[in-house]
């Protein structure tokens, strides 16, 4: 199985990391300074940040079992919140998160990223079928020094 953190995944993880930073900084700032204004919106903003952190961590450490739900949650989040911000703009006008308007404030990266994530998880996972090596990829042993979840999935 091809590690999710190498090749194109290397760049993907860095973009996830940037969004994790952006979303957490934004959500954290909102929650700590003006939480009472819009508890739901700001909780959502912080939740988005946490999802990106989990996705970044999972992809960077080759934890597919964690990366899949994180990326799918992210996809659902940006689609639902993005749609809501058009259907019910009052909800998010003053209290936006990275997912509002499909992430247009972030050059639509939040909209594109989960699809890239799913596509990369599929592609890198398929490499295992091609190689058909029963022991997985021994040459990558150095990179998964602490991944306990890698055994059953890899």
């Amino acid at each position, binding site marked *: 199985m091809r590690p999710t953190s190498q*090749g*194109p995944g*290397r*760049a993907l993880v*860095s973009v996830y990391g940037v969004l994790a930073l952006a979303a957490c*900084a934004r959500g954290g*700032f909102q929650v700590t*300074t003006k939480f009472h204004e819009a508890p739901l919106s700001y909780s959502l903003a912080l939740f988005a940040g946490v999802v990106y952190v989990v996705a970044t961590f999972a992809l960077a450490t080759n934890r597919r079992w964690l990366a899949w739900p994180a990326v799918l949650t992210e996809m659902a989040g940006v689609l639902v919140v993005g749609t809501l911000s058009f259907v019910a703009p009052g909800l998010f006008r003053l209290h936006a998160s990275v997912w509002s308007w499909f992430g247009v404030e972030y050059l639509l990266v939040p909209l594109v990223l989960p699809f890239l994530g799913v596509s990369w998880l599929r592609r890198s996972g398929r490499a295992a079928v091609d190689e058909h090596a029963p022991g997985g990829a021994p040459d990558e042993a150095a990179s998964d020094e602490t991944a306990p979840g890698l055994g059953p999935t890899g």
Partner: protein
Amino acid sequence: MSTLLVWVGVVLSLLLAAWAGWHTLRNRPVILRQLIAGAVVEAYLLVQLVVVLVHPAGGGAASGLFWIYVGTQLFVLPLAATWAFAERTRWSSVVLLAGALVVAFLQLRLLQVWGQA
């Protein structure tokens, strides 16, 4: 917050981004000289921080948001460089490219958030 102080930072980080972008196009990984260039940009950010601390020219005052940006941007290039250099394909250049663009963006945001409550 001096505008010039920010624009020099923007230009420096965009130069680094252009170099990384060139390597991406040429299918080459990040090289040591690019890391040194990244360290130069990082050093400039530190100088910028010191200048703002001792001489906050240009009127207005640094807000909490401003300090979040100033603090955040210091971590971007070291993290990007570390993450990039372990990969020995063109994708490491993409990592450095992304990191340098983020720094350029954060620099511009510094001007916007200066004086914002």
